């Protein structure tokens, strides 16, 4: 088995795609580019691809990853990368490909750096951010069909940086991914917006960088080769 770890950026209109939509865009882009994806077994074969760290709807990402299994013999070439770029919809931009063999560990996220804009009284938002940074615990409840889970945002999100901008504040923060999960950017924004008494509708969310375990960069020697634009 051969896997391609495709790094890509998502911006512009593509930032409004859901996780499933993004998966379908990757699949369709490969098909349009004429690069086959290996299929699963069974009555209804599915393309074997995954996005190891879903990007929230509305978020842009500068260095996202897709792991795609390609059939034996499909060559990772500059032409293939060019074809993927030409076959991509606006705002979806393949940046590079790393080829790894079966057995190579799959990329696991360790942390990601985010930025966003929060509209409202900048002073109130900055004060709420200072309160968050100073507090020891920030407990939130996550309600899902499976039940309610309490999580301490401080376990997953480090200090938040707030800068006043016209009409609100620009926030920067890092989310840590642990074996028991992670906080969602929206959960952090909800808390700050609640404390600042502003609407929790962030915009311009960007995932600026991701730290990967077994991802890009620093490959184990000899197990993979890379192609970038």
């Amino acid at each position, binding site marked *: 088995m051969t896997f391609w770890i495709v790094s890509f950026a998502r911006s512009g209109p593509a930032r409004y795609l859901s996780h499933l939509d993004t998966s379908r865009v990757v699949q369709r*882009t490969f098909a349009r580019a004429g690069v086959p994806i290996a299929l699963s077994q069974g009555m209804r074969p599915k393309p074997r691809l995954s996005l190891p760290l879903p990007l929230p709807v*509305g978020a842009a990402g500068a260095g996202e990853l897709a792991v795609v299994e390609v059939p034996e013999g499909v060559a990772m070439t500059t032409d293939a990368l060019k074809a993927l770029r030409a*076959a*991509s*919809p606006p*705002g*979806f*931009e393949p940046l590079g490909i790393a080829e790894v063999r079966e057995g190579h560990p799959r990329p696991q996220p360790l942390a990601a750096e985010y930025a966003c804009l929060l509209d409202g009284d900048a002073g109130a938002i900055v004060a709420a951010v200072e309160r968050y940074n100073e507090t020891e615990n920030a407990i939130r409840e996550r309600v899902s069909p499976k039940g309610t889970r309490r999580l301490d945002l401080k376990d997953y999100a480090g200090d938040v940086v707030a800068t006043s901008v016209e009409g609100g504040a620009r926030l920067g923060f890092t989310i840590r991914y642990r074996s028991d999960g992670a906080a969602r950017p929206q959960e952090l924004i909800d808390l700050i917006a609640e404390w600042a008494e502003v609407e929790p509708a962030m915009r311009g969310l960007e995932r600026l960088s991701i730290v990967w375990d077994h991802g890009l960069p620093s490959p184990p020697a000899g197990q993979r080769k890379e192609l970038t634009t």
Partner: protein
Amino acid sequence: MKSSGPGFPGLSGDWPPDEIARLLARVTRPGRYAGGEFNTRVKPGARPRIVLSYPDVYEIGVSNPALQILYSQLNDATPASAERAYCPWPDMAGLMRAGDVPLWTLETFSPVGECDLWGFTLPHELCYANVLEMLDLAGVPLHAAERDGEDPIVLGGGPAVANPWPLAPYFDAFFVGEVEGHLEAIVAAMQLDGREKRLQALAAVPGVWAPGRSAGPAQRQIFTGFSDSDPVLRPVVPVLEAVHDRVVIEVMRGCTAGCRFCQAGMWYRPVRERPVDRVVAAADRLLDETGCDEVSLLSLSSCDYGGVAEALTRIRQLRPGLRVSLPSLRIDSAAESLAGFAADQRGSLTLAPEAGTQRLRDAINKGVDEDQFDEAVRATFQGGFTGLKLYFMIGLPGETDDDVRGIARMAGSAARLAREIGRGRARLSVSVSSYVPKAHTPFELEPFAGAETLRRRQQLVRDAAPRGVRVNFHDVAASVVEATLARGGPGTDRLVEEAWRLGAHFDGWSEHFDMRRWEDAAAATGITLGEPTVSAPAWRDAVDARLDEDFFADELARSRDGELTEDCRDGACAACGVCAGEIGMELLA
């Protein structure tokens, strides 16, 4: 023209415009309003600027084949720039009004209201309130008479234009029929200076009916170049999951099966078929162009397409594992058609007996008998399909309670075959909709069954349905509204506007349809719901569908006598009046 591709403005957060980004951050499925599909065309500075709309939510509208044709031809074959806008979901509409942000296009985020021509495809009556909603959200005066200067010219098209009266005051003009052969003339009209000159030139285009301006009805236009043309080869490929997420190839236009209730079967005559070579080549190209893994052969009755078996076989050979589907199967040829499907793509399919007894099927010219039905059901389950949906209508002219109980009897027969052949794996469901008489059909002046009768007959089906078979019914109240508008004459527009002002929108969606708004609107306007507002076919004052009134009278008489009329593609001409001069059937040899 800029083509779609990577390299969109980066991560700075300044795209889309701030006022729109603020809205997108607050709504469900913001991708509906952001565009960004593969094969989107952007033509900066091009004139005229045309916006194409389908009055429903993005996922429905982006799948509409007519809009794909218009978008492709206007952008690729004329100097015009065509962009798109769909109807915002209520959460977005509320925020747009609160923020005073006018409706924008997906391609450039420019206000729709600043275009030269705004074209609507009108698929059915239950989207009429959405047309007013979109005009209002765009800041375009609702009534054509109130528009002037820089306001766009609003043009309606599509099958619902068969009776344009309920929307007449809101449109500057309607195009009646198939527009492919007249796009250049419409674009040329929009290149003139001034609204009045443009309207005059538009009204002179064959097929255009301009309320208050046209002297007589517009003759339905028929695209005579269909068989010699390619289907759309560079379709917009949605990035959100659309209702039709597959390659769609129109293999045939028109249907002459002659079902007497069917407006589309009358409206799109005559039958024109595309050569198999052209269809297969298009499938090959479109698979590359879209990245889809399924091809659907589209027409009103794809089993009647003369090249269906060859096309199915050859298209399946294009890619390993490729799925090929037909929108529906004819019962009398289902067994033969089913053989064209690959064993690994057999899921569920739909058969449409339409009526529960032979007498009523003959009256509507459906013609299939119960032996053919049983054979089709048997072939379905023997062929490995695990799901079967049976589609019926109630409220057909001349229907009796026994005809309705016949639906349950046929469902029972199918259920027995499912148990015998499907061995526990077969699922059977029945869908029962309410018949609404439509303009330009032999039943156009037949009475609508009415809510009370329809509800009682729904209960008859429910009571008699076999155990284990799921039966779905269409909302009778929505059918009552549809029936009012389908044959509404001049003045029915007041009902639409009043209902919209009372909050009607997305009436085709059960979660949004509210009959009280329409009842209140009816009370305010003095219109009786469910009744035609005119006794004579007022639609003929606006639309000449090329269908002979004697043909309708003859078909109605034959219906009452239970006589079948042959399909004219392989039987005698029924003298419907459509074929004349260069217009005629174009069938594969």
